[in-house]
């Protein structure tokens, strides 16, 4: 019989442009909030997985998992650090789920954190530009470069108006206004997005996620574990959401080698795998967190994952289908665009948001009423690796 993994508790710090706190401090704060939320004693944690992408590149520190274990006072647990660029958080979550499914841990603390303010804009841009293929790097190509090329191709092929991209930004900003952990709690309209400075044509500033500090954490437990069940009962929450599936896939590293610039194999493959493992179809999903590092990515991923047919996600967005009160609410917490994108924490912040939604923790205006099945995708680079998760209430 397959071991059932539950998300016993979640916690995170606000995402900010400059937290003024150390990386370890951010991580430990999120971890303690998740432990409190799960009502799990630190002494019962036997696995710690710490996701961080840029610490070395920004000359922060190394040995991160050990430093975090020491800060928390966690002795005797197995601990490691996970890195998968922008998908670091989801990969750390994947590792924690695996450990419990294999019976190697009873309670896993999974933490993701990033302190991008540790470097100035130039050094962070340089660090992120190193994520591409070295022959792309030689051309000065960055992740926004890929976003600009894909956005231009998407608008051309599907005869979509530029407003379709701006509508993604406006929607995600609107969702972040009442989210206390979001970096940008500011409403914008389509015109604001269309008037913002060009970053990589046709993408503008409001089409792009920010650089962020922040941390997110979850406590994973094994369903049927007496201690964990007792702890869940103590929290007063509804039953802890179940991890119905986690799956990942690599894809083409050099973006230009993709036969179709609007096709991201890693997204499609990871999606097919997770839907298969969870035994559901895209139609079954009630709420989704989609990796919108650039607005066009939200549209492409929704289509690659089968939520919409190719070339139709932009119309669905303009029609309000992906709004908080639409048929498929997408990025109800603001997404990377407005909640923020501290690389190592983002994938876990998606899980935190979905757990809040499934437990019904959120107030009206933030809540997707009646959500029972939730989906997340966290993407590395511009799609050379993707991690998908399905949670069920």
């Amino acid at each position, binding site marked *: 019989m397959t071991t059932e993994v539950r998300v016993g508790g979640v916690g995170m710090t606000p995402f900010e442009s400059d937290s003024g706190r150390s990386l370890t401090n951010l991580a430990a704060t999120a971890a303690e909030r998740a432990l409190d939320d799960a009502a799990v004693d630190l002494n019962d944690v036997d696995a710690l997985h710490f996701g961080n992408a840029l610490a070395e590149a920004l000359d922060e520190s190394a040995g991160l998992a050990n430093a975090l274990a020491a800060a928390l006072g966690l002795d005797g647990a197995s601990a490691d650090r996970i890195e998968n660029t922008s998908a670091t958080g989801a990969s750390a979550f994947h590792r924690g789920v695996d450990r419990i499914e294999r019976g190697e841990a009873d309670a896993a603390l999974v933490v993701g954190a990033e302190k991008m303010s540790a470097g100035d804009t130039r050094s962070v841009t340089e660090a992120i530009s190193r994520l591409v293929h070295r022959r792309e790097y*030689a051309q*000065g190509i960055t992740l926004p470069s890929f976003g600009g090329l894909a956005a231009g191709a998407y608008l051309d092929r599907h005869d979509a108006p530029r407003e379709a991209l701006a509508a993604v930004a406006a929607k995600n900003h609107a969702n972040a206004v009442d989210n206390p952990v979001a970096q940008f709690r500011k409403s914008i309209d389509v015109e604001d997005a269309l008037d913002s400075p060009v970053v*990589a044509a046709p993408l503008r500033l409001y089409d792009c996620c920010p650089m962020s500090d922040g941390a997110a954490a979850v406590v994973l437990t094994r369903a049927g574990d007496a201690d964990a069940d007792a702890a869940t009962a103590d929290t007063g929450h509804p039953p802890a959401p179940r991890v119905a599936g986690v799956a990942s896939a690599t894809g083409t590293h050099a973006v230009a080698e993709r036969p179709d610039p609007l096709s991201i194999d890693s997204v499609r493959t990871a999606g097919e795998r997770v839907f298969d493992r969870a035994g559901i179809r895209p139609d079954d999903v009630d709420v989704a967190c989609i990796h919108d590092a650039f607005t066009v990515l939200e549209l492409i991923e929704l289509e690659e994952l089968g939520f919409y047919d190719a070339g139709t996600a932009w119309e669905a967005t303009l029609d309000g289908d992906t709004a908080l009160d639409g048929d498929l609410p997408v990025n109800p917490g603001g997404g990377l665009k407005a909640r923020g994108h501290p690389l190592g924490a983002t994938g876990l912040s998606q899980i935190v948001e979905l757990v809040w939604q499934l437990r019904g923790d959120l107030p009206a205006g933030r809540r997707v009423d009646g959500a029972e099945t939730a989906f997340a995708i966290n993407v590395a680079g511009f799609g050379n690796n993707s991690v998908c998760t399905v949670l069920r209430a």
Partner: protein
Amino acid sequence: MTDPDSEVPENGAPADRDLPADDLPADDLLADRELPADRAFVCDDCGRRWYYDRRRCPDCGRSSADASTVRLETGAVMATTTVETTPPDVRAPNHLALARFDEVQLIAQAADGDLAPGDTVRFDGSHRLRDGRERTDPRLVAVDDS
């Protein structure tokens, strides 16, 4: 560091077994092989071309360590962008084009921002693509079809 008096060195390999030179993986040479922007790899066995270095031919699997290279002639633009926010050592704005040269697709710097999807392009000129790089490479320019 390996202790010459130790029977088993720190790297775990038996001390009495020296790898013959012929056994050294020639593929490791690939890591340092950097081609000009207008050249692609070509498999000497099956003729498959590719642009982004990889250790083996994607079709037949032959090692690419000693693969021949070929100069790319003309291609077709599939998408373009002009990047205003660039890394510290890259020109701003940076005009880029995704272009297809037969079976090879690549993203490269364009000489200017006038290219559009469907244009025919070739590589031309000699430019330092990033400040501090010693080498120079050509950029994409439009081919006059008239």
